C-alpha cells in the first residue's frame, strides 16, 4: 500500500494515550501539613481556584487521598516531583479505565 508522500509526522495525542494510558496524581493525607498550606500548594501548583483547592484538601483530610490531576505519565511525574518539593505526600497511579484493565 502506498503512503501519502505529503503526510507529515504530526503527533497524535489520542495515539499517545492509547499507547501509554493515563496516570493519576494522588495526594495522600499526612498529619503535619496545615490545611491552609495544602490549599495554597494546590492553588499554586495546579492553578485551582480556592473552592476547588479546598474541595481536594477536604478529600485528602477526610478520605485520606484525592486525585488532583489525570493525564500523561510524564506530566504526572512532573507534578508529583513538584508536590514532593512542597513536602506533600503524592503518588502517581495508572488510571484503570484508560489502561483497559
Amino acid at each position, binding site marked *: 500500500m502506498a503512503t501519502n508522500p505529503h503526510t507529515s509526522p504530526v503527533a497524535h495525542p489520542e495515539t499517545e494515550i492509547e499507547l501509554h494510558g493515563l496516570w493519576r496524581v494522588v495526594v495522600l493525607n499526612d498529619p503535619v501539613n496545615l490545611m491552609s498550606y495544602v490549599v495554597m500548594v494546590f492553588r499554586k501548583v495546579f492553578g485551582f481556584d480556592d473552592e476547588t483547592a479546598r474541595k481536594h484538601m477536604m478529600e485528602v483530610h477526610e478520605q485520606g487521598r484525592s486525585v488532583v490531576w489525570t493525564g500523561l505519565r510524564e506530566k504526572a511525574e512532573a507534578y508529583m516531583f513538584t508536590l514532593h*518539593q512542597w513536602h506533600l*505526600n503524592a503518588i502517581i497511579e495508572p488510571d484503570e479505565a484508560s489502561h483497559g484493565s
Partner: protein
Amino acid sequence: MKRIEVRLSLEVVAPLLDVVKEVSDALQGKLAAPLDIGEVDADMREFWRDELVAAQNGDIAKLLALFDKEFFSNGVIVFDADNAEPVMRACSAVRLRMREENLKGIEDETLETGNVEIDQLTEQVRRYFMCYLFLATLQELIIQHLDTLGDEEDGEGI
C-alpha cells in the same frame, strides 16, 4: 521589593531557634519524609532524590537566614517574594522531620488536631513541640500575606 516585617518576641523565639537549627542540621542530605515514587528505575530515583534534597537544603538556608543580626537586635524578621515560598517549604520539612524523629511519641491524630496536653510532655519533647507550633505559625503568617507580598509593604507583630 515588597516585604512583610514581623516582630517576634526574642525571649520566646530565640530558644526555639536552637531546635530549628538542630533539626535542620539533621536534615542535611536527607529528605524530610520517606520518598515513594513508585515504578521508577533506580538511576531516576537517585536523581529525583538528589534534586529534592538540594531544593530542601536551599529552602532551609532561607529559613535560617531569617534569623539574622536584625532579628537578634530588634526581633524583626522579613518576608519578601524571594524567601516566602522557600521558608514555607522549609517549615514543612522541619515539621515533618520532627514528627518522624522527635515527636513520634505523639499520636498522629493528636498531632493533626493539635489537642496536645502540653503539661504531659517531657521538657525535651515540649521544646520540639513548641518549635513545631512556631513553624506552623510562620507558615500561616506567610499564607495570610502571600497575595499582598506582590503588592505593598506590610508590618505585623506577634
